[in-house]
């Protein structure tokens, strides 16, 4: 399940944000990948379409790495 979400995020980052696939790992921070806060909001909008999980802005505050985002989505998927 979590691996699926990580794969989905990886796909979005490479296809929509142009992040090189080699740079992407679970412990990479969005900041290091060149995404700012507005990019992260955009990413969550795409994730919402693909996973059906809606992340609110306040839930993003402590999301730094891809793994943080995966955990947050897994949490909400229950």
């Amino acid at each position, binding site marked *: 399940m979590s691996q699926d979400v990580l794969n989905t995020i990886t796909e979005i980052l490479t296809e929509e944000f142009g992040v090189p696939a080699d740079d992407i790992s679970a412990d990479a921070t969005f900041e290091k990948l060149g995404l700012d806060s*507005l990019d992260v*909001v*955009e990413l969550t*909008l*795409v994730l919402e379409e693909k996973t059906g999980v809606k992340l609110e802005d306040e839930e993003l505050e402590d999301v730094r790495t891809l793994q943080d985002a995966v955990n947050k989505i897994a949490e909400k998927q229950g």
Partner: protein
Amino acid sequence: MTRVALVTGGSGGIGAATCQALAADGFHVLVGFGGSQDRAQAVADACDGAAQAVHIDVTDESSVTAAFEVATETGTLAVVVNNAGIADDDLLMRLDPARFDRTIEVNLRGAYLVSRAAIRPMLRARHGRIISVASVVALRGNVGQTAYAASKAGLIGFTKSLARELARKGITANVVAPGFVATAMTDELGDAARESLVDMAPTGRAVEADEVAAAIRFLAADLSGSITGAVLPVDGGAGI
């Protein structure tokens, strides 16, 4: 793909002309109204293209949210025009806090609520045009218009900041600053305020609502993607 344009205050003078101009450019226009549905429906019916009346009270967050739900159900939100506005003019010493607050609430806070709601759908589309209707008074001031001028000057600072925030995402934010336009709103102005506004313009005449709408239509166009954070005067030269 249906491209949606939402115009707040869509049944007023500038609003109605803007709805018609955007409908003519192929947008599905949502004629936003806070008051009379009949007038908004008449504007929608008069549009040469797809248009419908939608209730949006810009002072009420839940009303704004509901209007944006209609927008996203209709198609891709491409254009938002912050046009809803009031002018409640008086000399400052007679202007009580409630009247000042109300002007700011509609003209400035309203644009904030509407623009904020527009960001998510525009971000997803990586395209958007947020156009706010200010006034030449924002730049020049006018007797009896402290509250109105403050609210409209606020829109300019708001828009420039928003333009910086969203520029990389294909979303532009601009201001149109009309001079005196004869509308139901400006009918409420005192004779002195109206005359001084017309006298400011080297053209020596009032601005037509269609002329303001033409500027909005221009800023809404796909090819205007490199214009952001701009204040476009449509004032007969009153701001010179």
